[in-house]
């Protein structure tokens, strides 16, 4: 009995411990200054997290925006159109994508995506899209939010696809047949009946993917540039919170309050991810068990 309490206990313990370790910096500076501060110079006691928070937000948003349309289409395809043979090819592909370690995604990002952004996408954007601020190319390298977003999109794809697929499977076939029987096409059936039935579940799946993207450290770190400035364009580099923690753990103990700052970064990540996870998992649990009855 006790053993099943362990997971819950672990979550609480992690949160508490991180709060305790962050406390020194929380009592030294007002939270407002920490969150919205723009300058990061730990040697001088300046701990402004805003560039890192924004870096995280930008990279995650780009990753999710890039991932969602194709993943939804793939899930719909697998659920509503594909033969079981196609599905049996898809499963190993998705499993393999999910199994590839983040550092290998980072290597791929470094070798394939960064050059692609630098030599392929940036020139196009410079030529055609320079009027739009978020597409403006302000630096010569491919180490950018866009590169990080592309890598993240591929990383979260297996998760989003399988969650949405499972959600779609809860729609009873009778409903699809009822629509098809009056002469609707499959897409009309999907659009009018299937998707509206499970919309909350689809959103929950996307949120789950976003929370995975938020926490991804190594792969993003290797391609995103690690420059601590608030980004203004997807071609800018950024410095997401996980990268901040990973890059600086070595200096943590030597500069006062640095360790508390990094623990604070971890805490912020944890809290946001917990909120996303709990809400989306509740929604998904309810949908999946209700329909399976």
């Amino acid at each position: 009995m006790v053993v099943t309490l362990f997971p819950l206990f672990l979550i609480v313990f992690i949160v508490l411990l991180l709060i305790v370790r962050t406390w020194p910096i929380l009592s030294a500076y007002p939270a407002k200054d920490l969150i919205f501060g723009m300058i990061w110079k730990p040697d001088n006691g300046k701990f402004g997290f805003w560039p890192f928070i924004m870096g995280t937000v930008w990279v995650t948003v780009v990753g999710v925006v890039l991932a969602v349309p194709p993943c939804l289409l793939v899930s719909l395809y697998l659920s509503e159109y594909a033969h079981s043979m196609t599905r049996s090819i898809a499963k190993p592909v998705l499993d393999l994508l999910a199994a590839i370690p983040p550092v290998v995604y980072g290597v791929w990002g470094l070798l394939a995506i960064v050059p692609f952004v630098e030599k392929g996408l940036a020139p196009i954007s410079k030529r055609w899209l320079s009027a739009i601020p978020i597409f403006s190319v302000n630096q010569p390298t491919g180490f950018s939010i866009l590169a990080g977003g592309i890598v993240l999109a591929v990383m979260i794809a297996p998760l989003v696809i399988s969650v949405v697929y499972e959600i779609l499977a809860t729609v009873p076939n009778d409903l699809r047949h009822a629509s098809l029987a009056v002469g609707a096409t499959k897409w009309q059936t999907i659009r009018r009946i299937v998707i509206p039935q499970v919309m909350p579940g689809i959103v929950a799946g996307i949120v789950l993917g976003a929370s995975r993207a938020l926490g991804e450290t190594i792969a993003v770190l290797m391609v995103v540039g690690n420059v601590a400035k608030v980004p203004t364009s997807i071609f800018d580099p950024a410095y997401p919170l996980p990268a901040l923690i990973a890059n600086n753990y070595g200096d943590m103990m030597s500069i006062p309050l640095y360790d508390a700052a990094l623990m604070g970064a971890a805490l912020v990540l944890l809290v946001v991810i917990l909120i996303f996870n709990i809400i989306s998992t509740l929604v998904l649990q309810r949908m999946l068990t209700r329909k399976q009855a």
Partner: protein
Amino acid sequence: MDRDLNVPTLKARSTAPLNMEPHIQVRNLNAFYGKVQALKNVNIDIPRKQVTIIMGPSGCGKSTFLKTLNRFLELTDGTKISGEVLVDGYDIYAREVDETEVRKRVGLLAQQPSPLPMSIYENVVYGMHIHGMKKNRKEYKAAVQHYLEIAGLWEEVKKRLHDPATSLSIGQQQRLCLARGLAVEPEIILGDEPTSALDPISSQNIESRLLDLKKDYTTVIVTHTLRQAKRLADFVIYMYLGEVVEAGPARDVFNNPQHERTKAYLEGQI
């Protein structure tokens, strides 16, 4: 040989001349679920504007056959269909045929009532919207009333058209599904054991609807109760293990079955 309580009904209906002009002609139809053959060389003509009953023991292929008539069978993964199904002389399986158009013209009433997750009004209007069949709201509202009346549901729901369809009883839901199917103006109505999930009163209701509709629609119904078959049939098809064993006008098949199997089935059921 009239050994049943249904004698008066049979006699009453048999005064009208039975018009056996074919509406649907099935030629050399074979169907497979993977490697298992579910339909073997089915050749049959289904008469126009009559009620055709397909009967037979469980697993004989009656539902499978029914689903080939509105191109529903191909929705199941791994099925293979060969042969021709001619409606008014045109093969619905021809390459250039639009299967959604086929399903519009050949309506299906399923065994389990499946109201769409919307209001009563929206259920009936659904098919009409899909095909853009009316021009304005007024026409749609009139059509909804018309089809709900035909299905015998209007009086019960006219004051709550915008309530969710799931708030209806199961018998009402099935009538709603009937109205929904009729709203797209099919020529043929298929029924896959349409009353087996219903209570006796609702069943009777649906049966009388179907008999009323006979004058305008060709109806093909799968049933597993011989009694229902006798109540409804003008034309009977008896199937066994994927083959059509015997077919013909109801009074011929029921009173004078030619085949041993048919005889056995008719006797076994009583």
